[in-house]
């Protein structure tokens, strides 16, 4: 099983994702330069956080035209696992692999802090290893994480259980106080219909070692490994 971390000009959490897979899980992982146009041999792709192309114009708007994105779309259509974190999430919405968009944070400020998350659907390749009621503590670090989608879009999201993570208090209550960016229904992460593409604003790769203040990010990667070992 092999992971790939896609590197766009301006990506800056590529190192962190790479480090977690390689040094914490000891699994094979490679960087994929944004101009590469073959994804043969990869089982899971990670679109890391950062500021691809400076996030000028709109977050992810320019990165989505990198040559590799064509391949990523096909990879996803073939059922390959794709995890978009933060800027990666934004790119996935821009390229249309995930529904909705990420608007500027409600208070217009960048927020770097720990948040708590409720897992809304544990039957995905990214969450199968998580106990249903578990509240995750993960960091966020973004200025544009304010998830938005129109009404019928939201309706089908909910019907198909595509809302995967929501911001909560440490006790697990979903409320405005727990919403760091104004996201609709406190949505922090969504999947595509098939469930093989996940986008999330929080950074699981930053919560993989006790020394960093949380290990709650591990269960997401653990789920991925589970899933990959089964298939």
């Amino acid at each position, binding site marked *: 099983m092999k992971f790939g971390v896609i590197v766009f*000009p*301006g990506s*800056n*959490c590529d*190192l*962190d994702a790479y*480090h*977690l897979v390689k040094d914490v899980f000891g699994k094979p992982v490679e960087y994929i330069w944004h101009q590469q146009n073959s994804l043969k041999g990869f089982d899971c792709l990670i679109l890391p*956080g*950062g*500021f691809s*192309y*400076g*996030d*000028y114009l709109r977050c992810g708007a320019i990165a989505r035209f990198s040559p590799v994105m064509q391949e990523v779309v096909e990879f996803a259509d073939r059922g390959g696992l794709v995890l978009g974190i933060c800027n990666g999430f934004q790119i996935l919405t821009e390229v249309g692999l995930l529904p909705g968009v990420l608007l500027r944070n409600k208070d217009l*400020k*960048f*927020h*770097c*802090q720990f948040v708590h998350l409720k897992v809304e659907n544990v039957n995905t390749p990214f969450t199968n290893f998580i106990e249903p009621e578990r509240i995750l503590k993960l*960091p966020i*670090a973004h*200025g544009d994480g304010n998830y938005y989608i129109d009404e019928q879009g939201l309706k089908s999201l909910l019907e198909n259980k595509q809302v995967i993570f929501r911001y909560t208090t440490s006790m697990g209550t979903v409320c405005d106080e727990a919403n760091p960016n104004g996201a609709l229904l406190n949505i922090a992460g969504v999947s595509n219909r098939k469930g093989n593409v996940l986008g999330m604003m929080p*950074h699981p*790769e*930053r919560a*993989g*070692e006790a*020394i*960093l*203040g949380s290990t709650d990010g591990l269960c997401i990667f653990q789920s991925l490994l589970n899933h990959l070992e089964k298939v």
Partner: protein
Amino acid sequence: MKKTKIWQEMGLTDTEYQLITDGMGREPNHVELGMFSVMWSEHCSYKHSRKALKMFPTTGERVLQGPGENAGVVDIGDGLAVCFKIESHNHPSAIEPYQGAATGVGGIIRDILAMGARPVALLNSLRFGLLLNPRVRHLFSGVVAGIGGYGNCIGIPTVGGEVYFDPCYESNPLVNAMCVGLVNKNRLMKGWATGVNNLVILVGACTGRDGIHGVTFASEELSEISENKRPSVQVGDPFMEKLLVEACLELIENDYLVGLQDLGGAGLTCATSETASRAGTGMEIDLDLVPLREKSLTPYEIMLSESQERMLLIVEPSKENKVMEVCDRWGLSAVAIGKVTDDRMLKIYHGGKIVAEVPARMLAEDAPVYSPLAIEPDYIKDVSNFNLSELPEVADANRVLLTLLSSPTIASKEWVYEQYDYMVRTSTVIHPGSDAAVIRIRDTTKGLALTTDCNSLYSYLDPYIGGMIAVAEATRNIVCSGARPLAVTDCLNFGNPEKPEIFWQFLKTIEGMSEACRVLQTPVVGGNVSFYNERSGSPIHPTPTVGMVGLLENIDKRCTLAFKTQGDIIVLLGDSYNELGGSQYLLQVHDLIKGKPPALSLKKEKSVQETLYLAISEGIINSAHDLSEGGLAVALAECCISGGMGAKIVLKKEDLRVDALLFGESQSRVIVSIKSDYIPVLWQLAQKNGLNVNAIGYVGGESLSIQVDGLEWINLGVEEMEQSWKNTIAKLMS
């Protein structure tokens, strides 16, 4: 007559102009004069500060590079070195807070990159007026957003710093940015243009008219160009700089470079003349080859442009193609604009004609050095005659503590550092909010402790002691995190040095800092001087910001200020005196800036730090916090708040005033919490170092209770204290 005007308006004196003509054996032309005017400006030549800075101790067995290069470098073992520097961007930030601060960050990052180091952390020291003023709020939010905007985008964590609020900074805010990098000792780069016929390659952003307006000029050809063609404020492009960092590091890794230099103040003029001068070589530059943002830039403008995100590479001809390949992959334009020569001359060509021909050394090294007059200011006497006994004793200590906790200077800086990505690179193991931030060094057991410190109230009342304390507090913060202080980078923010009173402050400050650096064995390996921080004649307080780096041999031994376990014994290291001069208590409660700052015995400071360091490395300390603004009560409150648990404290008054005991800022003090079993070990260590230690209470409950001689002066719930401490700045800014 007319000519006189030119150099004067460029900021050169008649004598300086004479020096130039003598040195060149002729009158300089307009371009040459412009080059001299920027290279001999205070910013580049340090002509007023050079002599005084020589007082700093700059050597030590770990020091690989002291002042003089782009940044200082210190050996940390494992074949690694840490490289760091702090720099001011005060004036640009006052005009355009966001871009001013952002380009300040971008500039200091390039200094670290120029040494061949990978930038791994950023800090910033900020000073503003009072937040009640909307203009100040605008500056404050703009600066913070700008620092975050640049650091977050480029992906270097901003892990620490400080923010102070004082009326003296109202129209002259201070924005000091510090960058820390890691480098393989054998990959260290230098800004040297060695090797005759080696290529001079300019990489990165195109050159525009940015920052030229900073230098005023008067001459026919230029005066025609209209104002709006010369924007004085640079706009930063962190995305471009990210590419620049990755490309340069790849070039270094592959050993493609002979020399590397950033372009900052004085742009191409500074980069070319300094690299050549350092190497004792010369250079030929063809301005027609410089990529321009708009056509029609004059040679003068190209040489003086301060466009951001540019680096200068010195490359052997055989490696040119390889270099171009790398830059191209990173989407960067790179152009060979000239070559290294052996005649020590800087020759600038444009349109096939030579437009400037100057000895490189004259520009970079031969600026005059001044020793301005220094006279003790009159205010010193007025402020120092202050009789404590006339001050009414504290009545409601609870109220005072809440007042201090909710004063912006002491209150939580969360509103600031939550706008910074302080976690990217997943190496930050002590986040902002403790005494010093700590980042781990991958593939080793080691960590780096980082802090910036300066209490400019102390420096105003007594620049000598203020300078000493700035260094002492920085080292104390480093030691509180479990690390050994390594070295200092300093940013000296002062008023106009041509005023004898200001220069006196400057000299005294450096004397004090030097003394502390010597005793505490933290050499100064780099720094920056920012003069003329005045508006309408009133200068800022002397503000010698100390940036410090410490080394943790074992990252698992790191320590934070948060109380950790109920029942731990709380111990105060060091002694308290009847000292309230320059304290936040006097300022916030009695609205007084008076008295002498707290005395500092470097000998005692050393024994406190030695004891604490050993105790932490023994693994017997659960939390450590140094006493700074607000004294014992505030420090205890901070430990309670961040630990989410209370404490019961019992103090003896002895011959102290209660307000001094609770809120005094006597130096060389630290509070630690420790498991009772380990008390004997701590006592032994203290004894060995001739240090006073007193158990003053224990961790427990939901409130902070402080008794003095059996009388409970303070009893506040941790919740309540947290409320007033945590939300102050956010409230003021919303």
